[in-house]
């Protein structure tokens, strides 16, 4: 691949591909291929026009920068949340940078001389004598280390390298212990205990039978909730159905007078869900479109969720306040690997 001067040029810079063949500069013979200045903007009027073009672009940049300074000092940021100030600052800076950049490009394209050059690439191989030298040096180095002679050294080296992964394995142990059945335990990790009253998430007021209209949904928490862990695991939807709408006996028995409570945390990836449709009883998770049939044990009818939402068994005390009969009997939130 080494180029001798008479080769045809392989690489040309600044050549016009669509130049008409009768223009003398096009299709240069090989003898002209190096260092030819192709000043195609030789018409003085064209040069002048290009100069005005570039100057205009730079002028736009100057105006935009001045406007930027005016906008910074002159437009109040206390009105309209600084909306117009932000528009003016960002807009003028963008126009200034674009105009100056475009000016440079037009300058380079229209006014700078276009030159065709050929650049030869050298061979990728080193000369054979250098390759031989490097090989010899390497082999000499291996021999000098004397792995063949020093037996104990060799064996201890192998031993050390063999033992080296052990610390990594030991450190991995810190990822454990495995949760075992603890995630399926009594469920009090969620903050719900047997007898916990249902309170509204925002007002923290206890919820009575009849507070919720038929076809309503409410986000409830265990009374006295507080910790971050409870806030992430405890959110529960209270839904009220019209008589006869609930299809599952278990769902009906775990609720009271058409009120049922389900975990608000999606069993797929743990997003909070309450896109509840009161006519279809579909509950849609906005993250990955898992859809649950809330009138039928919250069964998954669409999407990636692997299991129904856990139901919280609720009842009402003598005054009508709703409370949890027992904590969640299934883990809330995303499914995990040991779940059957």
């Amino acid at each position, binding site marked *: 691949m080494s180029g001798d001067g008479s080769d045809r040029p392989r690489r040309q810079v*600044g*050549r*016009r*591909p*669509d130049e008409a063949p009768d223009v003398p500069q096009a299709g240069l013979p090989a003898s002209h291929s190096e260092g030819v200045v192709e000043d195609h903007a030789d018409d003085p009027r064209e040069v002048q026009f290009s100069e005005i073009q570039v100057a205009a672009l730079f002028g736009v940049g100057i105006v935009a920068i001045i406007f930027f300074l005016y906008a910074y000092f002159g437009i109040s940021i206390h009105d*309209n*949340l*600084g*909306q117009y100030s*932000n*528009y003016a600052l*960002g807009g003028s800076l963008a126009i200034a940078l674009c105009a100056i950049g475009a000016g440079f*490009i037009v300058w380079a*394209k229209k006014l700078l001389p276009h030159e065709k050059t050929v650049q030869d690439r050298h061979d990728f191989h080193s000369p054979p004598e250098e390759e031989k030298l490097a090989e010899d040096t390497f082999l000499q180095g291996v021999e000098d280390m004397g792995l063949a002679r020093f037996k104990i050294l060799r064996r201890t080296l192998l031993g050390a390298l063999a033992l080296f992964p052990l610390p990594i394995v030991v450190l991995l142990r810190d990822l454990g212990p495995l949760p075992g059945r603890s995630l399926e335990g009594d469920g009090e990790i969620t903050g719900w205990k047997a007898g916990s009253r249902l309170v*509204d*998430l*925002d007002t923290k007021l206890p919820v*009575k039978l*009849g*507070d*919720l*209209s*038929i*076809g*309503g*949904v*409410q*986000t409830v928490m265990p009374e006295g909730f507080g910790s971050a862990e409870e806030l992430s695991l405890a959110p529960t939807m209270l839904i009220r159905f019209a008589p006869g709408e609930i299809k599952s006996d278990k769902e009906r028995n775990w609720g009271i007078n058409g009120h049922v409570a389900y975990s608000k945390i999606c069993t797929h990836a743990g997003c*909070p*869900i*309450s*896109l*509840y*449709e*009161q*006519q*279809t009883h*579909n509950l*849609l998770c*906005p993250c990955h479109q898992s*859809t649950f049939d809330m009138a039928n044990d919250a069964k998954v009818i*669409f999407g990636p969720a692997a299991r129904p939402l856990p139901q919280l068994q609720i009842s009402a005390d003598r005054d009508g306040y709703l409370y949890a009969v027992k904590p969640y009997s299934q883990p809330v939130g995303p499914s995990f690997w040991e779940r059957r």
Partner: protein
Amino acid sequence: MENVSTSALTPDTGHRSGRRRFAHAGIVLLVIGLFGFLYAAFAPSHSAATSSDPAIEQGRQLYLQGCSSCHGLNGEGGVTAPSLIGVGAAAADFQMSAGFMPLRNHTAEAERHEPAYDDTEIEQISAYIGSLGPGPAIPTNLDYQSAPLAFGGQLFRTNCAQCHNFAGSGGALTYGKSAPSLSSASPKEIYEAMLTGPENMPVFGDQQITPAQKLAIVNYVRTIKTSPNPGGAGLGRIGPVSETAVAWLVGIGVCVVITMWIGSKV
């Protein structure tokens, strides 16, 4: 009628005496008569109530012309339309003033369009539907501007944002349905929608979200609707979807075009 009833009471005929047969028939007649009496006792009082108020009577006429073909002559509902007994005047007012009813097409959900009735007619029809059974009335106190804005925002994010988007821009639901944008909803429509739960929207009754809290939510929705976009274009305020689309298509697209311009040999 008599024969059917008596034969049902006496499955194997022949061994019962004629007197007992007549006694059974008498009981059946008595029951039928009782039903008739009860009907006569209740039905006239209902029609008497409708005719007492001229607005309700006017609304009934409009209802019979425009609504009864689907919702039934007495609002009892039909194959394609729900019963209107007990939905309340607020539900009727919402559906008609927001332009969801009368329905134009049987699509996955009702589409919003220009109201078909004027304000007086809507008031009259709503009054008639409100008289069919107990239900939420049209809210009268809509003085939302003094309601607590921050608390309204908190309630909105807990109860509304999951479907209507954090800025009230609406969002998709299941099987072709969607929660509409709140940008064109009037304060009264927002209030009534919470109160009555139109279509698939859950009902947020006054025991769950009190009237004062509803006004706070209305204030929040109206405020975010009119508040400016400090960072530039709102891009529909639907969050990362539109922003990413613009960044990829417009931003990278412009970069590619400029790069091609710089590299072109003209």
